[in-house]
């Protein structure tokens, strides 16, 4: 059928926390903005209701069933085979295609990089340098933090010119004891999180629901659903259930239109002056590859052949043990405290740096499953459950991965329900990361020792858990031969095509990627508004 046509100054593809933030800022500057979101609108109440009814509570994807017309990967009870694994090591990414995107469930970690993360090639001879430095990004970190409502401790290695919008979130008792007992060997710091330690922007302070993942039931943490709402309030138009499957270009290589399917597979065409692809580190390169044409046979923005390559995330290994005192994880937010001393140092020439992260997730469900598996019945069950719930601790590393072109997203031969090729991953855990893991075992043992630990259970050797911080697949850089976009996240190959998302980050450091992605995108917006003569957004609005 003949597609209908919609037009806007800016067409943003993807309504996640980053795409929506970009759309909001552009709309606030007076531009006409259209957001196309592949998935449906979902309410917080539905997610809460689904979680409590879920037979797979530890699977944080379970309250987010994929839409048939815009699937996302799920692995339980069995894989839906949406994200195909080409190996050698599985990369089982989790993300959410719905209005607001994947930060509907996150631990709300909103870290800045440390300054040296921007130049690991120059300093340590590994990876690549970013096309700009920490100081260039600093004001945009601040802007992101004020938008999202970020709180944190001042002593985390990322210098700041203005204070956090909020005080750090109150420290759970268990974390206090860990901090006290690890002195002086380790300094345990409160995490930097987009979680309210007071009423902020009309949202309440945290009430310790301990379900940051998969859902904060009271919106005490920021998420993409709020960002999308703010974008719409600023005047952006959002079309849900609009699964973009192709970008079109004109003879000069400028992007001219986005084509999307609605759930009934009717095709619609959207034209715009500028396009911003913000569909996450997997779906964005997928769309560029899907948009191959005679003029761009390898896909859009891909003259470098770097689209989809340099896939990075944060693998983790961990130690679980029993402390010698009752701590009762599960009171307060899920992920409150870290150790940052291994985030940077000369050792980065040799092995991956890492952040050490203490979980505060309730041990009750996990212990219950373990006891049932063990066949513990009768009176003993309650005693054992209470013992583990009170004493069990877990510390994990969050390891840096270096960019490697062999780690990549490609198109699969298989197609999804809409007939669009599915994404496929090629991934492995490199030596640099493995050596970082090995080094961290020393810290694990020392921490257990200082906590009077017993019953030490290291994660299975060779197994690395994934943290869903998808980076690198649209890497920015100054050289069009080795990067997809320039320092402003504009495609080297297309004058009016920008990217917003963690895919543009050239390296992944040791911290969750969201705040870096938001800050870089705000820098992109600032550049776009300056270049296009639209009045730049003035000082970031304080939301307090």
């Amino acid at each position, binding site marked *: 059928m003949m597609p209908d046509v919609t037009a806007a100054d800016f067409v943003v593809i993807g309504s996640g926390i980053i795409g929506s933030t970009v759309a909001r800022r552009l709309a606030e500057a007076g531009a006409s903005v259209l957001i196309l979101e592949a998935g449906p609108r979902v309410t917080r109440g539905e997610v809460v209701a689904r979680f409590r009814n879920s037979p797979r509570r530890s699977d944080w994807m379970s309250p987010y069933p994929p839409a048939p017309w815009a699937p996302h990967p799920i692995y339980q009870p069995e894989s839906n085979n949406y994200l195909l694994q080409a190996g050698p090591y599985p990369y089982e990414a989790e993300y959410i295609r719905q209005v607001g995107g994947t930060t509907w469930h996150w631990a709300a970690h909103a870290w800045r990089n440390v300054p040296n993360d921007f130049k690991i090639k120059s300093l340590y001879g590994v990876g690549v340098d970013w096309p700009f430095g920490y100081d260039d990004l600093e004001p945009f970190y601040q802007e992101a933090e004020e938008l999202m409502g970020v709180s944190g401790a001042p002593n985390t290695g990322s210098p700041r010119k203005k204070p956090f919008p909020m005080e750090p979130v109150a420290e759970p008792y268990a974390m206090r004891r860990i901090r006290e007992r690890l002195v002086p060997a380790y300094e345990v710091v409160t995490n930097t999180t987009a979680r309210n330690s007071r009423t902020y922007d009309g949202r*309440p302070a945290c*009430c310790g629901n301990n379900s940051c993942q998969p859902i904060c039931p009271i919106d005490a943490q920021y998420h993409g659903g709020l960002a999308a709402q703010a974008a719409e309030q600023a005047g952006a138009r959002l079309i849900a259930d609009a699964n973009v499957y192709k970008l079109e270009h004109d003879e000069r290589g400028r992007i001219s239109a986005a084509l999307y399917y609605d759930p009934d597979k009717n095709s619609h065409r959207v034209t715009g002056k500028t396009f911003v692809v913000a569909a996450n580190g997997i779906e964005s390169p997928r769309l560029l590859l899907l948009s191959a044409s005679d003029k761009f046979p390898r896909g859009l923005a891909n003259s470098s052949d770097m689209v989809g390559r340099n896939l990075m995330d944060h693998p983790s290994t961990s130690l679980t043990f029993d402390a010698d005192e009752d701590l009762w994880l599960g009171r307060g937010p899920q992920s409150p405290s870290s150790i940052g001393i291994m985030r940077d140092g000369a050792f980065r020439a040799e092995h991956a740096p890492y952040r050490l992260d203490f979980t505060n997730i309730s041990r009750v469900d996990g212990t219950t499953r373990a006891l049932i598996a063990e066949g513990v019945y009768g009176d003993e069950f309650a005693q054992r459950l209470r013992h583990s719930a009170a004493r069990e601790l877990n510390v994990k590393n969050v390891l840096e991965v270096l960019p490697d072109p062999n780690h990549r997203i490609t198109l699969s031969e298989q197609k999804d329900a809409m007939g669009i090729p599915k994404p496929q991953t090629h991934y492995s855990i490199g030596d640099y990361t493995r050596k970082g893991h090995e080094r961290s075992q020393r810290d694990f043992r020392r921490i257990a020792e200082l906590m009077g630990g017993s019953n030490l259970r290291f994660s299975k050797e060779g197994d690395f858990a994934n943290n869903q911080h998808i980076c690198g697949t649209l890497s920015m850089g100054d050289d069009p031969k080795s990067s997809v976009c320039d320092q402003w996240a504009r495609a080297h190959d297309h004058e009016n095509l920008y990217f917003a998302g963690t895919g543009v980050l050239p390296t992944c450091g040791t911290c969750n990627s969201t705040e870096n992605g938001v800050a870089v995108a705000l820098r992109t917006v600032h550049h776009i508004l300056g270049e296009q003569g639209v009045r730049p957004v003035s000082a970031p609005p304080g939301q307090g």
Partner: protein
Amino acid sequence: MPSNPSTWRFPILIIVLVVTALAGEVASAADNPDAALVEQGRYLAIAGDCAACHTAPGGKPMAGGVAIATPIGSIISTNITPSKTSGIGNYSLEEFSAALRRGVRADGQRLYPAMPYTSYAKITDADVKALYAYFMHGVETVDHKPPETRLPFPFNIRLAMMAWNWLFLDTRPYAPDPAKDAEWNRGAYLTIGLAHCDDCHTPRNILMAEQNSRLLGGAELGAWFAPNITSDADSGIGAWSVDNLVRYMRDGHASGVAQAAGPMAEAIDNSLRYLTEEDLRAIAVYLKTVPAVHDSADTKPPFAWGTAGDALSTIRGVAVPADRDQWSGARLYDAYCATCHQAQGQGSFDGGLPSLFHNTTLGRANTSNLVMAILDGVHRQPDVDMPGFANELSDRQVATLSSYLIQRFGNPSGSVTVDQVKTARAGGPSGNWLVLAARLVIGIVVLILVAVPIIALIRRRRSVSV
């Protein structure tokens, strides 16, 4: 009235005083021979909640300009800073007193009864003097004149208020009852005078004058309900302890009894929480003696209803319906309320997140405040104690949820309809204004007509802020 020495214990007030004094724009000490009197006046101005109408959000204190929206036009509060050009800087003590206690401006014009001068009429001469000292010397001068109030004919005939005043304004200051002790008398003076609790809590007659026979007997306040606070055990606050009343006025909540929301939360935020423990106790002691106004439908105190319980067996293991308007009350409770109030409505361990049984909001036959709490939430500056759900829940969902809450945790004689939620969402009943106006036009002297809607509309306005 003697000055209240405990005022000095309020560090906030002292800080404000010092800071504003240092600001230099406030009249200098040379013009201000009696700092203690000014400070007493400041406290009284807080007790009288002058700022509620005369300080715009984010604006300069007492500079006016707050537009009070009514169906007949906006009434705009005036600048009452000591500005000689824009405020009340030229007022003599006598002129100040006349405005405060008689509703007459220095230029002879009548105030609209948006100004609660029928209550302020009870303020003693000594307190008027202190208030005058504060407004002349303790308030920063702002030389900006807010726009004039311009109501259409016949409401623009301010002289009309004379007749209403003649009928309903008792100009005698509060006279202590010698049969009662000083605490009781102080409480009565504050309750029905300076703090003008009666302004909202006393029902009005057809001419919008307070019904003295039902003093503090409870009244609709737009979409909210200002409850009966007489001594009746089942309909009023007779079953509350004095301590709980004090806690409620000071903290905005009394555990296991009630939480303040809407206009009452504002009154606490702006005024009551700054009052001394002695004054709050005096108000509580007085309230416990106010002649009982009883509604025979009330068979036990509102906070005595309900028990812990759940309907989880109806939703666990049952798929979440796609059409959210078809969700059951139990499902809505699960998705939106149970998170804080807990699965059986029992609240948090320490009661900081309140239980829903033994909760006044659910125990009253009048369900206005339940609906409004769900729509607007509970706000205590600067905090969101409970987020509102107006943007998340439809009228039908709020009605279904409210009915579930009432049946499970509250007084089952209450009910909530979809229409009621719709009306509350729009700011409260509005149709009755037309009825009222029609009656008045027919039966009442045209001049009196002016006062009636205005008081009513003020009451309505107080309910739609948040």
